């Protein structure tokens, strides 16, 4: 067997809570979240940064956690799908996914919700093109894209403000 490096201590804030774990430096953040922190809402799809199922917010920016080495989470602020609702109170995006039927098998849904939340933080009133761009990194194998798109539109409309046609 190949020689091994040691596990290192990693401290990060996950969904507002300070967490400490021991992990190999090149372990994937995805595996640390699921296996060590038991946050299994983040899914593994392709494992190569194509599908967005493992998307989380790292210091506020959407990233694919399968492409982030654990050591780079040290000192970072991470938000996973478990941190999107406030207790029983769903986020407007989650409500909209429910209302619009924006989930079928559900594997892509955590990533789709994270991508939608990230989009609405960047553009509270996105154009159609911005919604498509914001979701372009998330693949749905059930191909339910129209309902997911409709859910993001619904989430924007829930604020009562109008979206621009273009910029």
């Amino acid at each position: 067997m190949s020689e091994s490096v040691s596990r290192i201590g990693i401290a990060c804030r996950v969904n507002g809570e300070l967490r400490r774990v021991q992990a190999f430096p090149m372990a994937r953040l995805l595996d640390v979240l699921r296996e060590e922190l038991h946050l299994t809402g983040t899914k593994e799809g392709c494992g190569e940064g194509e599908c967005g199922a493992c998307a989380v917010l790292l210091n506020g920016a959407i990233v694919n956690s399968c492409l982030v080495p654990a050591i780079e989470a040290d000192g970072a602020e991470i938000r996973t799908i478990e941190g999107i609702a406030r207790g029983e109170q769903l986020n407007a995006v989650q409500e909209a996914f429910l209302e619009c039927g924006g989930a079928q098998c559900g594997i892509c849904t955590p990533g789709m919700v994270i991508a939608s939340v990230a989009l609405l933080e960047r553009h509270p009133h996105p154009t159609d093109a911005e919604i498509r761009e914001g979701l372009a990194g998330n693949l749905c194998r059930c191909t339910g894209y129209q309902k997911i798109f409709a859910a993001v539109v619904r989430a924007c409309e829930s604020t009562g403000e109008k979206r621009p046609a273009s910029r």
Partner: protein
Amino acid sequence: MRAYIPAYDLRVPGSLSEALALLVREPGIWQPFAGGTDLMVLLEAGKLPHKRFLSVAKLDDLRGIEVTADFVILGALTTYTEIKNHPVLQAEYPLLCTAARETGSIATQNRGTLGGNIVNASPAADSPPALLVYDGEIELVSVRGARWPPYHGFHTGYKKMQIASDELLRAIRLPRRAKPWRQYYRKVGTRKAQAISKVCFAGAALMDGGTIRDVRIALGSVAPIVLRAVKTEGAMRGRSVTPAVIAAAEETLAREIAPIDDIRSTARYRLRVAQNLLNEFLSQLAK
């Protein structure tokens, strides 16, 4: 097969001097690791034979976009997101902003870096054609000092670069002369978003009435390196944009590029598309 993760080391030096000292102390042992958007894919696929990496994530000397009177200087760790949102880059270097916007998804754009795109040395990289067209220079630093070679010529063959084992890419600078040039960028992939290029084309021309006073073009995915097509440029420089000149330029391009058949496309398709993109670039100059 997945890689055996405990076999991989990733050191995170806190300063540039610490990083450069490590590169000198153990030459060839430590490979730089930036955004990881390519290396982590290889790792997961079990295709990453090198085991020891030096993370440049904490090296603040490699960050930031500086605008001076003569140059825009981009730290090697500048992300695609930072590029596409930067007002000076948007105004003066639209090809680079388009390349950044069309590279991967937003999640990839938040992690992937300009320096990584260069040193990873993929012939299909999307930002290098723009950097070549803007006549960029790169800063390579080591304990021996810093040097600023032109980016053109940095790649000498497939994944081969003019960089010593103790050097790190610190920055890329672009001369602020692009504004009067007519500029064109087009990436052709399987789908509109998040596709790796079949062909990528960047071009810029300085026009004098109907005459091409100066021109630079560069292409991705048509050769072992991202290619500045200097012979094709020579077939256009000083000429008016006429059907005969366009045909001659397309002919020269066919001899200058060396596309291959691979998982994403065929040599024949790539050649035809590269010529079509050149044609579109030139036809727009005539308008």
